[in-house]
């Protein structure tokens, strides 16, 4: 095994994770606060209105990062589910489980802010086109994952069933990404990933990237809190069983 692999396994046990996450937590929290403050300032005060979309373009700064995180969280959840099914790794199982409600929240916000942007620009809160529908499917995949997790008395079975759903549902992530290229849609294509580089002015790119950084730091912060809670809950169950048994 290479050095990086050894390094990973050394830190990827729950007890070490508690120590490591205690160090990372305040940094993630601090980064979130600083980046959100800077991002909201740039989004609302220091960036210009769009020449076509006017002030509604500011919705982009909460809509696009939420949509990115919705797909990023699902990818993490699917990868952690694969690791959990392959190696039965307890920490991977916890990361997948704890990512689900965060990803579901980002997906909900992407849909909601998109709707608030669609009404003034398309004159429709909702259209059944490929991009919007595939993101709605993503929300249902998250909710299905959470429901499956809680549907079994044996948490191990719930975790395995939910992991299979997460893996099967991963096919939806590239569909979301390329939906604007594969189908005719009202939704505009990506302005970031083009052959000529980002097709977006620096004054709008800056708030977008800072908000994306803020959302990423937020994800790390909340994920660490939730995984810590899960690890400690396992310790509590073990202690209670020991006390009940002897």
């Amino acid at each position, binding site marked *: 095994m290479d050095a990086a692999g050894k390094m990973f396994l050394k830190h990827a046990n729950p007890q070490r994770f508690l120590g490591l996450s205690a160090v990372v937590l305040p940094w993630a929290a601090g980064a979130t606060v600083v980046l959100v403050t800077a991002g909201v300032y740039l989004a609302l005060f220091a960036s210009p209105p769009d020449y076509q979309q006017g002030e*509604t373009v500011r*919705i982009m700064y909460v809509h696009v990062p939420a949509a990115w995180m919705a797909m990023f969280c699902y990818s993490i959840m699917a990868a952690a589910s694969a690791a959990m099914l392959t190696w039965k790794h307890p920490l991977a199982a916890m990361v997948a489980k704890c990512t689900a409600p965060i990803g579901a929240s980002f997906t909900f916000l992407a849909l909601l802010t998109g709707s*608030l942007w669609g009404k003034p620009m398309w004159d429709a809160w909702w259209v059944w086109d490929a991009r919007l529908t595939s993101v709605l499917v993503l929300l249902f995949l998250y909710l299905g994952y959470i429901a499956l997790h809680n549907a079994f008395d044996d948490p191990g079975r719930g975790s395995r069933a939910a992991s299979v759903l997460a893996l099967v549902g991963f096919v939806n992530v590239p569909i979301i990404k390329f939906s604007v290229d594969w189908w005719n849609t009202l939704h505009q294509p990506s302005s970031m990933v083009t052959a000529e580089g980002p097709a977006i002015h620096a004054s709008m790119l800056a708030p977008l990237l800072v908000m994306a950084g803020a959302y990423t730091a937020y994800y790390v912060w909340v994920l660490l809190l939730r995984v*810590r*809670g899960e690890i400690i809950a396992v310790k*509590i169950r073990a202690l209670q069983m020991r006390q009940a048994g002897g």
Partner: protein
Amino acid sequence: MDSLAAFFNMGGYGAFVWPAFVTSGLVLIALLAASWHFAKAQERTLARLESDAGAGAGAAEDGHET
């Protein structure tokens, strides 16, 4: 004062821009608060169980000695 009103008006799109920002903030703060409470509650429960176990073990040892 006019500029403040113009800011909140958002070129006539205030009814769309502000709900997008406010609900994003509320949802993310609610999820953070719930996760924070969950983690802290588990930490408190574990601390209590461990101090109980420590006290219990201590009492049992005392019992053996007398």
